[in-house]
C-alpha cells in the first residue's frame, strides 16, 4: 500500500518541468489552495493513509491480482504477458482508487457535496460509489453522446443516488463534461469538492490523482518480485487523461531497466479530428487548467477528437505524461479503433476476460511488444477495466 514516495516532481508550483501549473479563473484559487493544503497534510497523516488503505483493501478488494495470461502469451508467441487486474476492483476499474481517496479528502475538508465529470462512466460510477459509501450527495456531468454510449453506467450512478447531468455543449463528450463540472465548481466552490477523474486539471490534481493511483504500480512491483523474482522488462498502460498509466508508471520511473509504454487512441486515422493521440500528435498548450500536450488548431482552439473508447476520447493529457515524454522516460504510441476491437476479441476468446475498450488498446500493444521479445522476458499490462459497459457498443459496431 501507498507508502509515501520520494518526489522530484512536481515542484511547489505544480510544475513537472515546464508542464502543469494552474491556469484557472481566480474564483477557483481559494478552493485549489485549500485542497493543496488539505492534501499535503493528509499525505503525511498516518491516520488518513490507514483509512485509505483499509477501504482499498476491505471495500475495493485490493490488492488486485497480477495474473499470468498463458494463452495470450502463446498467441503473441514471445515474452510472457502478465495482467495487473484492475478490472477485478469493486466497480470494475482503477478509477475507484482515486474516487475513494478524494472522497476521504472531501470529508477532511468539511465539504458537503461531491461533483465529478465522466467519459466512459467509470469515474462517474466510482465517484457515485464513494459518495454513497461516505454519505455525500453527488452530481456527475457526462456528455450526452457518452450518456447514449454508456447506458449501463448511467443506470448504476442513478441507482446509487447520484444525479447524472447530460452535457449538450460542444462535442458532448468528456471534454465538455470537464468544462461543465469546472463551471459548477466555480459556482459552489465554498461547499463542494470536485473529484477530477484523471491526472489532469490544475495543481494539485495531477499529483494527487497520481498518488492515489500509485497503489497499482507499487503492488505490481511487489507482486513481480514475489511471482517472477524480478521486475518486469516492459510495463504497458493505455492513456486518455492518463490516470491508470500514471499510477502504474510512477513507482517504476526510477527503475531504468523497466521500459514504460503508454498507448493512446489512434481513432479512425491520423487526420485532425479523427483520433485522440494527444502526445503522439499534439503540441504543448493549455486546456482545463493545465499546461500539457493538447490537440489544437493553429489559433489554440481545442481540436475535435474521436475514439471508439469513451474513456480515451480526450484532447488533453496529464502534464506528468508530457514531462515523461520529453524526458524520454516513457514511449508513447497509439492503437486505432479497428485494432482495439480485435484486441477486445482476442482477449475475450483467449483468456475469458472481457476488457474495457480502453484496456483493449493496451492489449494490442502488449501483444506486439511480447511478439518482438524473447520468451524469458516479461511484459505487464495495466488491465485498467472490465468491458461490461462496452458490450452494447461493441455489438452495435461488430454487427452494424
Amino acid at each position, binding site marked *: 500500500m501507498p507508502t509515501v514516495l520520494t518526489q522530484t516532481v512536481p515542484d511547489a*508550483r505544480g510544475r513537472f518541468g515546464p508542464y502543469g*501549473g*494552474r*491556469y*484557472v*479563473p*481566480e*474564483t477557483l*484559487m*481559494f*478552493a485549489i489552495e485549500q485542497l493543496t493544503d488539505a492534501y499535503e497534510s493528509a499525505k503525511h497523516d498516518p491516520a488518513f493513509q490507514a483509512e485509505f488503505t483499509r477501504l482499498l483493501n476491505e471495500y475495493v478488494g485490493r490488492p488486485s491480482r497480477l495474473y499470468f495470461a498463458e494463452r495470450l502469451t502463446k498467441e503473441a508467441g514471445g515474452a510472457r504477458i502478465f495482467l495487473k487486474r484492475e478490472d477485478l476492483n469493486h466497480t470494475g476499474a482503477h478509477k475507484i482508487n482515486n474516487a475513494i481517496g478524494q472522497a476521504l479528502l472531501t470529508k477532511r475538508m468539511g465539504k458537503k457535496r461531491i461533483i465529478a465529470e465522466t467519459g466512459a462512466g467509470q469515474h462517474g460510477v466510482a465517484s457515485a460509489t464513494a459518495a454513497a459509501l461516505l454519505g455525500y450527495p453527488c452530481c456527475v456531468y457526462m456528455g450526452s453522446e457518452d450518456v447514449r454510449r454508456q447506458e449501463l453506467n448511467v443506470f448504476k450512478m442513478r441507482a446509487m443516488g447520484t444525479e447524472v447531468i447530460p452535457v449538450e*455543449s*460542444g462535442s458532448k463528450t468528456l*471534454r465538455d463534461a470537464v*468544462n461543465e463540472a*469546472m*463551471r459548477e465548481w*466555480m*459556482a*459552489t*466552490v*465554498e461547499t463542494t469538492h470536485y473529484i477530477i477523474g484523471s491526472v489532469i486539471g490544475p495543481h494539485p490534481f495531477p499529483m494527487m490523482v497520481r498518488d492515489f493511483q500509485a497503489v497499482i504500480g507499487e503492488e505490481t512491483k511487489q507482486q513481480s518480485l514475489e511471482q517472477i523474482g524480478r521486475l518486469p522488462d516492459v510495463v504497458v498502460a493505455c492513456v486518455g487523461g492518463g490516470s491508470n498509466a500514471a499510477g502504474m508508471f510512477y513507482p517504476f520511473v526510477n527503475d531504468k531497466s523497466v521500459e514504460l509504454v503508454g498507448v493512446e487512441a489512434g481513432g479512425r486515422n491520423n487526420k485532425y479530428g479523427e483520433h485522440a493521440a494527444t502526445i503522439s500528435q499534439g503540441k*504543448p*498548450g*493549455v*486546456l*482545463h*487548467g493545465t*499546461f500539457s500536450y*493538447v490537440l*489544437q488548431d*493553429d*489559433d*489554440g*482552439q*481545442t481540436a475535435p477528437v474521436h475514439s471508439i473508447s469513451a474513456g480515451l476520447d480526450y484532447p488533453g493529457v496529464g502534464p506528468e505524461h508530457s514531462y515523461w515524454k520529453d524526458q524520454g522516460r516513457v514511449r508513447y504510441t497509439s492503437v486505432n479503433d479497428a485494432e482495439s476491437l480485435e484486441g477486445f476479441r482476442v482477449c475475450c476468446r483467449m483468456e475469458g476476460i472481457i476488457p474495457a475498450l480502453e484496456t483493449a488498446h493496451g492489449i494490442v500493444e502488449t501483444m506486439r511488444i511480447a511478439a518482438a521479445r524473447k520468451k524469458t522476458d516479461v511484459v505487464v499490462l495495466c488491465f485498467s477495466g472490465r468491458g461490461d459497459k462496452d458490450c452494447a457498443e461493441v455489438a452495435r459496431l461488430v454487427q452494424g
Partner: protein
Amino acid sequence: MNLVDTLFTRLRAEGRKAFMPFLTAGDPDVGTTARLFSQVAAAGADLIELGFPFSDPIADGPVIQASYTRALNNGFKIANLFAAIRSVTSLPNFTTPIVGMVSYSLIHRRGAEAFVSTAKDSGLSGLIVPDLVADEADHFAALCRKSDMKLILLVTPTTTPERAAKIVKLCSGFVYCVSVVGITGERDKLPAELTQQLARLRTMSDLPLCVGFGVSRPEHVRHLKDIADGVIVGSALIKKLEQGGTQAVIDSVRELSAALR
C-alpha cells in the same frame, strides 16, 4: 498615453463612471462586430471589452459560451479579427479603448510575445486573461508592461486579502472586480458584500475598480455608480444580440449607460 489611462483620468476629472459593454468577436461575424465598435461608442460605451471566442471557456456561462460557439462555427479566426480591430482603431476620431478578453490557450499558441505585439499593432489597449492567475502571470505581465499593453486581472469574492494585494500589484489599467462566486451570466441581485470588497481594494490600490459578472439591469448599474469606477455588462447584451440583433444591443447600451449618468 494608453487610451485606458486617458479614459479614466478624464472620467475622474468629470466625476463620471465608465460604462463597459462586452461584445463577442465574430458573433455573428467579424464585420458586424467591427461596425458595433463605433455604434456602441456613440450610444454611450466608454470602453469595449471584446471576447475572443474560445472552444473551452470555463469561466463563462451558457450565454457567452453559446455566442463563442456561434462565432467558431462561422469560421472565426484570430488573424481576421486583428485586421478588423485595426480597421476601426486606425480611424482618427475613434478613441474608445478596446480591451481583449482572451483565454491563455489562444495566447500561448501564437506565442505570448507575438500575441502582445500583434494585439498592440491592432490597436487593442489591454488584455484580460481570465485563466491566468497572478501566480502564473509574472512573465506575461512584464511583456505587457514593455508594450504599454494594460493587463487587467480579476479579483473575486473568494480572493483572500493576501492574494488581492499581489493581484493589484501586477494589474494595470483597472481592476476587474468579479461581483459573484461563479461564472458570467445575469443575476437578480448583486451580493451585499460587494461594497466591503471594493472598499478593501481601495485601501490597496489607486487603480479604477470596475465590476462585472452578473450585472444586467439599470438598477444594478445605478447601485454600482456610487461604489465602482466602471460597470461591465456582458451576457445581458449577448442575449439582446441573439434576440434582436445589433440594434437591440445599441439600444440596451444607451439605456444602461444612461443609468450611470
